[in-house]
């Protein structure tokens, strides 16, 4: 009897397994395989060893894209967590119109990155946006040209990204704060601890898991950053905001260079594994240690 249930359960799971193996692992293996060929627009079976990888890492554009995604990733995740936490703490003070503010702060997250990107592009464009309006009011020397400035364009992306992502962190953090018992507040008040200190030393440590989850969600978005860049700067000026996902897409389609694109994708996957694997391992060890206790 037991055996039969197992069999039908296995049978029921078969489609899921098939999807997992064929769609995820199969296509991944296929991509990695292609990265060792000289494929251009269509897959070829002429193997060229690591030539595509050598080409990839001699490309200034690819190297710039790695650096950019690192800068963007750190500042975007960090900025969202910080701003999101501050917003949550502000809303947690039982202010009036709390739900209205909550909606306003979360609203950007409901928007597509393309919309966010376009809005910020227009606002930061020196001939159309904020700079032009302020100058027309009389402040002639006012400068706000992040989007077209080679050194600052990447920070313009961060600004737009944080504006969009902070709301998500706020909601998660706020939910965590509401879960904290009122007793703790009372106790802290009696001890005469200032409010900011309560948030930093008492609330924040308890929000650890919630913030880690929010950070993980944002970090996954960083790897596939593409739409906001295309909408806002299209990788420019020069290489200033080029990102790996865009590099791969450009080579996959516009430049008909399947080999180079799949090499880039493989490097990206390796990068993700390198970051995620130690994290997973630590989690695993952590839960094991807990189990032993």
């Amino acid at each position, binding site marked *: 009897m037991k055996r039969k249930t197992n069999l039908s359960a296995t049978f029921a799971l078969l489609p899921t397994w098939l999807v997992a193996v064929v769609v995820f692992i199969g296509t991944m293996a296929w991509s990695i395989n292609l990265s060792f060929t000289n494929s*251009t627009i269509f897959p070829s079976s002429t193997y060229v060893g690591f030539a595509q990888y050598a080409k990839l890492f001699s490309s200034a554009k690819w190297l710039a894209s790695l650096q950019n995604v690192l800068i963007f990733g750190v500042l975007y995740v960090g900025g969202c967590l910080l701003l999101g936490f501050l917003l949550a703490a502000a809303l947690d003070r039982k202010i009036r119109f709390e739900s209205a503010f909550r909606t306003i702060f979360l609203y950007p997250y409901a928007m597509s990155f393309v919309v966010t990107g376009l809005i910020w592009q227009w606002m930061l464009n020196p001939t159309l946006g904020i*700079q032009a309006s302020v100058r027309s009011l009389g402040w002639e020397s006012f400068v706000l040209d992040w989007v077209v400035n080679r050194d600052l364009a990447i920070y313009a992306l961060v600004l737009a990204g944080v504006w969009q992502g902070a709301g998500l962190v706020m909601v998660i953090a706020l939910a965590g704060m509401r879960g904290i018992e009122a007793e703790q507040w009372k106790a802290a008040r009696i001890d005469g601890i200032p409010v900011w200190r309560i948030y930093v030393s008492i609330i924040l440590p308890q929000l650890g898991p919630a913030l880690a989850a929010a950070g993980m969600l944002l970090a996954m978005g960083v790897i596939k950053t593409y739409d906001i860049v295309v909408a806002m700067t299209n990788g420019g000026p020069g290489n200033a905001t080029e990102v790996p996902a865009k590099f791969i897409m450009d080579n996959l389609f516009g430049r008909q*260079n399947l080999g180079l694109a799949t090499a880039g994708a493989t490097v990206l996957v390796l990068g993700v594994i390198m970051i995620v694997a130690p994290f997973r391992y630590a989690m695993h060890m952590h839960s094991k240690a807990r189990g032993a206790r």
Partner: protein
Amino acid sequence: MKNMMKLFLAGVAFAGFLTTAQAEDKPTIEMLSSWTSGGEAAAINVIKTEFEKRGGVWKDSSIAGFGAADAAFQNRVVAGDPPGAKQGVIGLAAADFVSQGLFNSIDDVAKAGKWADVLPKSILDLISYDGQTYLVPTGAHGESWVFYSKEAFAKAGIAEEPKTWDEFFAGLDKLKAAGLVPVAWGGQPWQQSKVFNMVLLSQVGIDGFLKIYVDKDKSEASVEGVKKTLAILHKLHGYIDDGAAGRNWNDATAMLITAKAGVQFMGDWAKGEFTVAGKEAGKDYGCMIVPESPGMVYIADSFYFPKTGNAETDKAQKLLAEVVMDPAVQVEFSLKKGSVPARSDVDKSKLDACAQKGVELMSAGAIVPDQAIVLTPQQVGALDDFVDEYWNSGSDDTAAAAENFFAIFE
């Protein structure tokens, strides 16, 4: 299991019914193009109107930006669901598709229409692969143009078209002094590469240009020419405005139409925008070939006809090829698009002052092909990267940059 089988058979029968139902319909073509700006849309509409007049059904799948359209097209080809027709440039860009057997030949239409007698040989060669004609040319574009706003020139006190680069830069200084944006710059890589090419042609001449791009020649003379070109580009960088980065070409043209800017380097499709805005060539705006240039860079557009496995679509493709090559359509299309008709036997009297100049250069053979015709897409991408990086770096180390230029052919 039996039920499943029945369902399956019913499905097959239903699908069969659908295809027969479709077969009785008119020849339908799905057109995937990137022609979406005002002038471009008006031009493709000429073809659409004539196609529908001859009994065809037109389904529009336009996507703005030819890179985006290319990506969508490639995706659909790989997925086995190509559109009936795709707009694209002639030459190497289509070669891979043809050699993989993904496109339909329209050789019988070409033979029946005697295309060999009415098309310039250079264009005929670039739409044929292994002796078979695959593409139908819609028109040719000159890409060595400097457009200028007559109003802006009058404001700055420039009386004559500058003939040399020295005079040109003197003119830009006057525009700047008059408080105008001297150069309406479109800061996208493909636009910048086109400016690089037109300046390069003015520095190395027709033979020198072909030597560099076709023979990949790296002699002293070629390197010198590239260095001089880069020096001119560096100088031009001082005459653009803050909003240039990432600007669309038609937005740059709008700056000329409103007389906010003086000149724009662009292909002659920019005329389409002037026309839509009700501006007239020679009266409201002027056009000149880049200073010191002995000829012009050209590119020609065409339609590709992917194999769809549908006999009706094949018929529609042939009808479309006939429509595009119709002499009246060729002229009307070129007037709207700002191009030069691909057919050489059409009535040229209707063309505007700028197109007349272009026709002259073309019939004199003073033309060189655009990079998209003679380079692979990978090399075109590398050229875009090179020019974009040099332009934005603000460096004037032309010797080092010239080294990088010749690396794009590797």
